[in-house]
Structure formats: structure tokens, C-alpha cells
């Protein structure tokens, strides 16, 4: 399990570099390192479904970032940061950090599924009746398409709406200039 913690440290270091670096290409490569490290983490936690989805979406995201962003959108932050802004940010981060530590102390230990300890927990039903009621051998598929099918339908609706909006905004035909009259 030591490799798990090494991967976590690697992902955190990559995230810090991605935020701090000035070069846009380095930042994109660090984002890719975060994604692939996260995929390996999911694989070590025995969640191959999530690992496959993570690595595939990461590849697509990297392609979009490199091909469609870097070549034409040179965004740089050149302003000097004011002193008051630094103090303000530090205070907010400290408040969030203290609240996070207080929440973490109430959590169960890492790796112990607390929600399956109860006698009438829903996961018992998922494990025992999943194959009989939904017909899926993979218990993840039986949850996301059977017991929690509403979630998947909502996710498909969200994606449908988002892509429709994106393709309408980014279209090439049918656009007119600002002072052009309506035809």
C-alpha cells in the first residue's frame, strides 16, 4: 500500500506545479500527470470502471487543451499581486483549512466502509439482489443503470443540454457581425 501514498504525493506535487508554473504547456502536462495518477489511484482502490473512464476522459481533455487552447489562446497573468489580497487569501484559506480539519476528525478511518455496517443498509440489497433484479454481472453497472438509473438519465440530460449549447455558441455558419442587420 506504500505505492498508494507515493502516488498521492505525486499527484499533489503535480497539482502544485500546475498552479504555480508560468508556462502554459507545462501546466497542461502537469494536469495530465494529475489525471493519470488519479487513474492509477482508482485502479489500486479496485475500481476499474472509474479508472477506465478517468484515463479516457483525461486523454480527451489533454487533446482539447493542447490542440484547441494552447496554440491560439495565450493567456498570461502579469499583474503583481497586492499585499492586501495576499493577507485576505491567507485568512480565507486558513478558515477553510480549520473547518476541513474539524470535519476530518468526524470521518471514519480510511478504507473502512462505514455505510455498510448497518443491518438495513442499501448496499446489502445491491450485492445480494443485483444480478436477480437488474441482470447485470457487474455490480457497478447494476447500480448505475438499474438501482440508480435516474442518475444516469439525469447525467445524459445534462450532457445533452451542455453539448447543444456549446455547438450552438461555437458554430461557424449563421453568425453575423455585431452591426450587421438581420436578414
Amino acid at each position, binding site marked *: 500500500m506504500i505505492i498508494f501514498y507515493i502516488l498521492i504525493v505525486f499527484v499533489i506535487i503535480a497539482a502544485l506545479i500546475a498552479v504555480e508554473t508560468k*508556462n*502554459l*504547456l507545462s501546466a497542461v502536462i502537469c494536469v495530465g500527470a494529475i489525471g493519470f495518477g488519479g487513474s492509477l489511484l482508482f485502479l489500486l482502490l479496485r475500481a*476499474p*470502471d472509474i*479508472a*477506465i*473512464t478517468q484515463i*479516457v*476522459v483525461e*486523454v*480527451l481533455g489533454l*487533446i*482539447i487543451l*493542447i*490542440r*484547441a487552447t*494552447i*496554440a*491560439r489562446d*495565450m493567456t*498570461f497573468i*502579469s499583474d503583481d499581486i497586492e499585499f492586501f489580497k495576499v493577507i485576505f487569501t491567507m485568512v480565507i484559506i486558513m478558515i477553510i483549512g480549520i473547518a476541513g480539519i474539524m470535519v476530518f476528525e468526524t470521518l471514519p478511518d480510511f478504507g473502512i466502509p462505514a455505510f455498510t455496517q448497518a443491518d438495513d443498509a442499501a448496499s446489502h440489497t445491491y450485492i445480494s439482489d443485483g*444480478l436477480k*433484479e*437488474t*441482470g*447485470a*454481472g*457487474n455490480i*457497478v*453497472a*447494476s447500480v*448505475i*443503470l*438499474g438501482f440508480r*438509473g*435516474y442518475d*444516469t*438519465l439525469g447525467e*445524459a*440530460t445534462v*450532457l*445533452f443540454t451542455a*453539448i447543444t449549447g*456549446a*455547438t450552438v455558441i*461555437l*458554430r*461557424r455558419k449563421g453568425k453575423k457581425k455585431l452591426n450587421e442587420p438581420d436578414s
Partner: protein
Amino acid sequence: MKKEKQNSDTQQTSLPVPSSQGMTIVVKTVSSWLKVLIFLFGIYIILSGDLGPGGGFAGGVILALSYVLLMLAFGREFAEKNLPRTLAARLYYCGALTFAIIAILGIPFGGAFLSNFLIGKFGEPLTILGGGTLPLSNIAIAFNVGASLYLVILSLSVCCKGKECKFE
């Protein structure tokens, strides 16, 4: 002045961007074979989604990635000739509509919204057709996700600002 200097600095460090004619002959040959394998792997991931790891979302993204590889290697016009924008849009509407219809058909046949009314009709459970509506839902989600992501990449590689665009 400062901004211009930064722009000229970044021009030297930016990537060599492939033109719309595509890349070299080596990349074209390799990617024309790899595209088929990636497409087959996507179909495998979709169809085995209710038996093993995978599913409609990941398989759909892999299908989109095979066309993205084609677009990067051969240029945008070639990919748009293979899978036109209107056909991709139709596939994407049809995927979403099919999933909704499968969900609604559960009410008259199965008694509840999204119920699996086809379970065991085409074969035993734990075979590829025994999952009832689950493989059909996976295929519908894959069409929805794959075609929509392909459309997004196509739109992002078309959209540009001013006359400095190299992709047109």
C-alpha cells in the same frame, strides 16, 4: 510593450501545430491502422459494460477518440468527410432519445420507470444479451456521449479569432 514581448516569447516556445493537411506519411499510415483497433476496443467496452469494467460513457469516449486521432493525423476536412457534422448531430440526438424511450417503455411493460423489462428474454443472465435493457442503454449512452464529444472537438478546432488562425 510588455505584453508584446511576452507574446513573442511564447511564440518560440509554442508547439509545432499540425496544419489542416495533416501530419507526415508515417503518422498517417500508423493511425489509419490504429483507428480501427481503437474503434473495436470501444465497441468491446460498450458491449461488455454490464459484465465487466467499462460501460457506455467510457466506450463512447473511446469511439470519439478514434475519430479525434483521425482528425489529428489527416486534418479536419478528412474527418469531417468521414463523419459529417450533421450525421454526428443526428447520432447524438438519437442516442439521448433512445435512452429516454427505453426508460419510458419500462412503465407499460415493467411497471416502473426505468425498470428492466427485457431481462432474460434473449438469453441467460451473465451472457452478452442476457442483460435485458442494460446493453441497449449502454449503446444509447455511447452514441450520445461519443457523438457529442466529437462535435465539441470539431467545433473547438473550427472556432478561431481573427485572421491569425492556422487551422482554417
